[in-house]
């Protein structure tokens, strides 16, 4: 990979929608055989960024490169390399499962070779063969998602966009989609994934780009992002004790802001030194210490004043 330009590279992307700055200078990179997780709370600009990346929206400023070449010079050629699975089901309800794949193949030039064989292969791989003659509406949520991903792959793209691919699925269906994504990564596809599920992002992503209010607030491996944004430990304690004002004051004097509060429980992200200081300051307090996860990161981003 050294010396090779990344499969996808975006620099300083800016987008205003309805006069509002939605994406403000976003940079990101995705390599072949890599899953890039694009994370952020609602309204962070994930979907708008994704839509610019796959050519649905044009950027007001910034550049998108595919293997080092500016995609705006030949957007049509770039789009031939992309597979897109949108957040909403957008399959064609007038056609059966098989016909959906065939019709989608007709929207690409050069035409995908041996379409019939490719469709059979995808139906088999995505366990859709049994439903090939059914309308997509007849499928369960998990199989509809499989159809959406299969349709995005019918022309053998090199870069796949998955916008919240498992939202609304039961755990079994989610795991099935994860297996498919893992398999596609192993085949060398670059995958850009947005998700609200933190376990999904942690399990699937080789790299994370975290957005908040339209800007990149962290980038790196899941572990390094958590370390940079949250620290090494999270202290979890019930927020109904008499010592809580003292804990809040302790956070305030150290510039750690407000605690992350969930259902009467405080989650305090702390470094190793801060944890030792906390233990010395509150020797009689009962609390749990755990490693940080992406849920903590989301909570922190959703509460920007939380410091």
């Amino acid at each position, binding site marked *: 990979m050294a010396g090779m330009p990344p499969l996808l590279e975006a620099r300083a992307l800016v987008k205003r*929608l*309805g006069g509002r700055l939605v994406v403000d200078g976003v940079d990101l990179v995705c390599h072949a055989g890599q899953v890039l997780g694009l994370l952020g709370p609602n309204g962070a600009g994930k979907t708008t960024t994704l*839509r610019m990346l*796959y*050519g*649905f*929206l*044009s950027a007001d400023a910034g550049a998108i490169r595919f293997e080092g070449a500016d995609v705006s010079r030949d957007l*049509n050629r770039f*789009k*031939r390399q992309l597979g*897109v699975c*949108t957040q*909403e*089901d*957008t*399959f*064609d*309800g*007038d*056609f059966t499962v098989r*016909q959906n794949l065939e*019709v*989608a193949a*007709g*929207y*690409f*030039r050069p035409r995908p070779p041996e379409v019939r064989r490719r469709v059979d292969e995808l139906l088999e791989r995505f366990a859709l063969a049994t439903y090939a003659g059914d309308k997509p509406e007849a499928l369960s949520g998990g199989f509809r998602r499989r159809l959406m991903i299969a*349709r*995005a792959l019918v022309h053998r793209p090199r870069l796949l966009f998955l916008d919240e691919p498992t939202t609304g699925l039961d755990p079994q269906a989610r795991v099935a989609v994860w297996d498919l994504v893992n398999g596609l990564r192993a085949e060398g596809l670059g995958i850009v994934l947005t998700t609200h599920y933190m376990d999904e992002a942690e399990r699937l992503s080789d790299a994370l780009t975290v957005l908040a209010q339209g800007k990149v607030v962290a980038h790196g491996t899941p572990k390094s992002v958590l370390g940079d944004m949250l620290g090494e430990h999270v202290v979890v304690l019930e927020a109904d004790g008499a010592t809580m004002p003292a804990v809040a004051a302790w956070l305030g004097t150290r510039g750690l802001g407000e605690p992350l509060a969930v259902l009467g429980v405080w989650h305090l992200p702390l470094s190793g030194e801060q944890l030792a200081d906390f233990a010395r300051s509150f020797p009689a307090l009962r609390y749990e210490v755990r490693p940080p996860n992406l849920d903590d990161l989301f909570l922190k981003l959703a509460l920007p004043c939380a410091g």
Partner: protein
Amino acid sequence: MRGLTAALEWQSRAVVGRHLRVYLKNWHTSFLPPVLEPITLLLAFGLGLGAYMSSGIEWNGRLVGYINFVAPGMLAYATFMTAIFQSLFGAFIRMRYQRTWEGQLTTQIELRHVVWGEILWAGLLTTSYVAIVSLVLSGCQALGVLQLRLEYLPLVIPIVFVAACAFAALGLCFTALVPTIDHMNLPIFLVVLPVGFVSATYFPLGHPVLAAISTANPLYHLAEGLRGLLLGDRAGYHLAGLAGLLAVMLVILVPLDMRLLRKRVLGD
């Protein structure tokens, strides 16, 4: 300019191909309206209403049988209504409820191709509809019900195609603007039906005000142009007027459709 030339790009044809594939799946039900509608209208207007006008009606200074007056008007009205309804309801359903456009836009198809695909499909569907109506009219002529210059029917087909594309471009503007399918009543009652009323399709426009308004109505020029061709009278003035109005409609409305639908579909 790029928006206009997109009509010739493969992506627009791919969108038309998709609509054609759906149509052919349901051909047996799609085939019925163009066969039954002209028969019903000829019976109701031509033979029914026409029976009260046994001496015929005056058109361009001569008397013609009412059924012969109505038949070309029927072709024009079918062109207008089929194209408008396809671009209003058919396109709206694909855009809003079936999300067909959104799926297409994740491929190499771009919005300008979706717009042209809808317009060209409306043109093609309308032309096939009018071709079937023409066959029914030919059957009626063989039975002695009509006396038209049928040798001019092949000329009708390309005229109808271009007119249907322009009417579809008008319909797509409303598709881009109306918030819900229930609001389709607004363009239908405020624009579509008045345009149909001031068009001389089913009755001549005797009132001078209506006649003056009709000169800016492409459907009027289409009806009178087809009538001129099929009844053997001057058609050149109306066909030239029609060509001018259709060109203006396409040059103005297609880019406007793209602009309005970009905002509506892409939010951009």
